[in-house]
């Protein structure tokens, strides 16, 4: 059992897919509510305050990206988007509009469940709403006031850019941040296409954090962005 009754709102128009997700999540202890249209999804997300939203981007009535944007206006609940066509730009758009994570159809159920667990685990620390000086991501602690980072109590020396990169990911822990978002915040608006920076800095950070490649804290989402999770 993954959960003790967190409410998951599934916004999915495909009857069979909605049924499968509902059955699978209920078997793991989640409480599930299904909406078959974007409008119904918006109504329920406002009325029921779900812990997590699973949102299919291909809805019959309202564009999924728009649904994402509107839910973000009142809710901090993590949103996991489901793309049917594997179109990179659609999921990146959704992530930039406030979605936290994505899966691409046809996805495996364990993959969706894993992403759901991450979303629930980091729910409290989600969004740009967290602005504590001390951000904890498992055994990783980022002190944004003193610009210091420790892993399991041991100090890690970072360059200013490495620190900003890590602090941004920590502030949005669990959430996938797109290349564009990270470059914009750390290197400035003129650097939004310099994805080569990210590769270099991500590698340096993994080395300094002594990330284990089998269960890394700093996860690469190929072609999309990066995210930071607590080590399991």
């Amino acid at each position, binding site marked *: 059992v993954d959960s003790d009754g967190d409410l998951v709102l599934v916004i999915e*128009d*495909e009857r*069979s*897919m909605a*049924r*499968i*997700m509902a*059955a*699978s999540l209920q*078997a*793991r202890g989640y409480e599930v509510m299904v909406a078959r249209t974007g409008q119904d999804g918006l109504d329920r997300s406002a009325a029921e305050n779900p812990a997590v939203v699973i949102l299919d981007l291909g*809805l*019959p*009535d309202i564009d999924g990206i728009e649904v994402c944007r509107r839910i973000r206006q009142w809710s901090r609940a993590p949103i996991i988007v489901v793309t*049917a*066509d594997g179109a990179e730009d659609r999921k990146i758009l959704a992530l930039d509009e406030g979605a936290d994570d994505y899966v691409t*159809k*046809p*996805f*495996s*159920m*364990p*993959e*969706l*469940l894993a992403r759901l667990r991450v979303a629930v685990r980091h729910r409290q620390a989600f969004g740009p709403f967290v602005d504590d000086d001390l951000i904890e991501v498992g055994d990783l602690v980022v002190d944004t006031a003193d610009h210091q980072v420790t892993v399991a109590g041991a100090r890690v020396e970072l360059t200013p850019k490495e620190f900003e990169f890590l602090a941004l990911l920590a502030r949005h822990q669990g959430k996938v941040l797109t290349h564009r978002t990270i470059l914009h915040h750390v290197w400035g608006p003129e650097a939004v296409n310099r994805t080569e920076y990210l590769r270099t800095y991500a590698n340096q950070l993994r080395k300094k954090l002594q990330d284990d490649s089998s269960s890394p804290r700093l996860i690469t989402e190929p072609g999309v962005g990066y995210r930071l999770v607590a080590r399991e």
Partner: protein
Amino acid sequence: MLGVDRSRRRRDPKPEFGLAAGIAVVLAATAILLPFRSDISRASPALILVIPVVLAAVFGGRMAAIATAVVGAMAFSIAFIPPVGSLRVAVSEDAVALVVFIAVAIATGTLVASEADRRRAAEQRAEEIEAMHGRYQALVEEQERLREETARLAVLEQVDKQRAALLRSVSHDLRTPLASIRAVATDLRDGAAYARPIQEELLELVCDEAERLDRIVANLLSLSRIETGALQPDRQAVALEELLNELVTRLRRLFVHITLDVQVPAALPLLDIDYVQIDQVLTNVLENAARHAPPGSTIRVSAASSEGSVTVAIVDQGPGLNGDEIEHIFEPFRTGKGSTSTGVGLAICKAIVEAHGGMISATNTPDGGAEFRFTLPVRRG
């Protein structure tokens, strides 16, 4: 262009030739008239000598005519005006005649020359107009060719667009049932512990989705047959009732929340149809109806025979079709707003029904649902 130049040159006045011809005729006329000099009046040679001036004017133009007139006057003076053999004129009356001759000859020559000029100019204009007309004709033909080329390119572009649309919708449509199948399979492999009824429901769902995949693939095969023109009905005697019974059993999972009411009169004649193809037509129309019918509603299938054909009607209680949809519903890749279908199913229905010599139509019922109607041929003899 060369031809035009050559003909223009040919018709231009040739002063040397005109003058030479004029003088030759003056000399010939003088030589012929000379023996009768004493028998004829002086007016006769004067009149006859106007002829070479006219000839010179026609062939050589105005200057040749004037020169010929002068030569003619000299010949007239020398040969016919006393004293003969000299240019001198003895009698004043003869001087007046000579002057009148010159004046008349020049006037006539000038008039004839300018008339000839006008005629030549008119002919030239006519020729130019004709040439222009020819060029215009060539331009029109060229334009026509370009138009045809453009039309052909537009058709090719349309075909390209349709192929892209087909690939898009097919990959989406194949992926949707695949996604459900994969989700259930990975979930069960992962060791998900389900209560028995739920596990059965999920496996049932996998079977449904596999059948949906099969229907999509069947439609794709038909589509490719339509494209290659290989949609030949393999006709046999078929009882519509049997076909429908079989079909309803196979599609029953599509109608879990919908009532299917099939009313086929027992006395319906046998149909002369390709069983597999008409099965596909009914499957596509029923699947389309099931997709749009609200839960709890009824889909009615009925059939009636009339003079050599059977009309099948499928009526649902869904939202119906809007005007634009009714017009284009049988075109490939036309899907309703928010539709989850490939948009080829109904296009295939139309192609198959028409290959059987029948007709298919879509309308709205008075209560707002959609009604699909098509005719099928009856077996003879």
